């Protein structure tokens, strides 16, 4: 890629918007994932009793649905990112390409 094309892309408003939006979104979601996972690990490390307490009259504990919840959360949060990237980010990206590659 030659220097003038790089400069043209780097100063394109759609590119700046894409870069800012995607990186902010990516970092927030990363943070959310870290909080959920390390939150779970810290509960395991420091508050086993909380995870082992019963939710009702049966044998079900707080920990099992919570653990399943972490797995489901992981899949859902990935889907959330991919959905937005497939629509909004890809549109911005093709707008950049259209503007600079003539």
């Amino acid at each position, binding site marked *: *890629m030659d220097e003038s094309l790089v400069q043209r*892309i780097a100063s394109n408003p759609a590119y700046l918007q894409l870069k800012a939006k995607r990186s902010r979104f990516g970092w927030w*979601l990363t943070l959310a994932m*870290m909080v959920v996972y390390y939150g779970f690990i810290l509960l395991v490390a420091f508050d086993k009793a909380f995870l082992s307490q019963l939710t009702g009259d049966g044998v*079900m*504990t707080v920990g*099992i649905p919570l*653990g399943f919840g972490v797995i489901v959360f992981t899949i859902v949060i990935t889907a959330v990112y991919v959905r937005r990237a497939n629509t909004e980010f890809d549109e911005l*990206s093709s707008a950049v390409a259209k503007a600079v*590659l003539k």
Partner: protein
Amino acid sequence: MSRLSTSARRVLTLLALVSVSVAAWAAGADLGQADKQATNWTAIGMFGLFVLGTLFITKWAAAKTRSASDFYTAGGGITGFQNGLAIAGDYMSAASFLGISAAVMASGFDGLIYSIGFLVGWPVITFLMAERLRNLGKFTFADVAAFRFQQAPIRIFAASGTLVVVAFYLIAQMVGAGQLIKLLFGLEYWIAVVIVGALMMVYVLFGGMTATTWVQIIKACLLLGGASFMAFMVLLHFGFSPEAMFAGAVQIKTDLALKDGKVAEAAASIGQSIMGPGNFVKDPISAISFGMALMFGTAGLPHILMRFFTVPSAKEARKSVMWATGWIGYFYLLTFIIGFGAITFVLINPQFLDAKGGLLGGNNMAAVHLANAVGGNVFLGFISAVAFATILAVVAGLTLSGASAVSHDLYATVLKKGKADSAAELRVSKITTVCLGVVAVVLGIAFEKQNIAFMVSLAFAIAASANFPVLFMSVLWKDCTTKGAVIGGFLGLVSSVGLTVVSPSVWEATLGNPKGSALFPYTSPALFSMAIGFAGIWLFSVLDKSQRARVDRAGFLAQQVRSETGIGAATASAH
């Protein structure tokens, strides 16, 4: 006799079980030593069918594998959905299928903690790495790490990181294959290792990435199908009520504790203990460190990273991880149900127990015995064949990524300064494949009697401490320089290996030093070695005032533009 078969003898004592299996999976759900079983012809027949099918695919793939690009990345012609299955296949190893279901059977909830750790790296890869990798890279992750840097030093580092990770992972898989075959097929250990080595070489040599990917896809479908059937049969037995399944398992664990001579109250609490965390996490530092190795190691495994270059665009790369995350998550939910199913169907079924009440063949046979219990002998043969196929497919992917590091990074880029022609590069990668195959077989046989439980987790720790920081900083941090990346990367590599050697799982369990003599007390080095890697990259980049450092920093803008937009990225080759 190893700890897993020792533990099988004490299977009735839950506490003993917990401590033994915890040590085993804290170190990577390794398969451990196994006793040879009677020859199982159904399983061998099913496996023969799988091999026949995959050889046909290899023949078809061979016709398509002409250039270096075909060999490394299947010409970039894999779709996101296919690639997602292949990535999931790389991840759903025999160790995770048999190891995690055995862990769940032994101690319930703790098995879940382990599988969650393996899953949570994927979203982070999706959010921060996948698209950028695809936009910057061509064949190996070194293409990305070296994008704006001086080629030779970074490539040498990346090839070292790749080969070290691949070596440990390969040994673990080869030893696992040998042990598994003794268990499942009743064949000799060395025969299994040679079969794996030979078949893997055929796939990679003739079919390159196309064959390696399709072998992985087929295996992933078979494994997901088989595991789904087992989980379905378990749930059917309990009228699709999870509460009934859990209650049944707790009851059985309680009865077993009673039979073991516990008083009623203690037995009930042992029974209920499978529903909450046990001794998996010994201390918070180990827990966090181990979690970091799993979470970030995934983003530094060379055989996973290379799969991002097999798809035609960043969009497909993104879809790959979406599918992979979905399949892997689903698979771990299945193993959890399978583990609880094994408590009900296997743990109290005399058909599957030895004289002392332990599982025939050891605890890792939980899923295999369950297959027999819910689907009869033919399904048992099917699951055994799938478990073997799993190792084969993972080993092929590992070998291919090792071969790419040597031929593309070391030979074509460092030695030939990027001027090697495609045919010569292809020849080098094939020679490397043969060498790696032979080395894997030899090491597999050499390590037969060794305790290699630490090797998979070591591979993850190295990937997290060396490959991941270099990749991450080179892509996202403007001021990163060649010198910083190389020194920091090697610091991460050396510290993760060094700390593992002086940790209890190697220093005491493998090298046989007395208990308590290990200098590093935690199960995983990642928390410390990752910090060393990142700090090293930062410090030596900041201190770097060389001419080259100016070039490195100036190159960031062009790299960022391409990583964000994909303009100028390598495209799929036409077929």
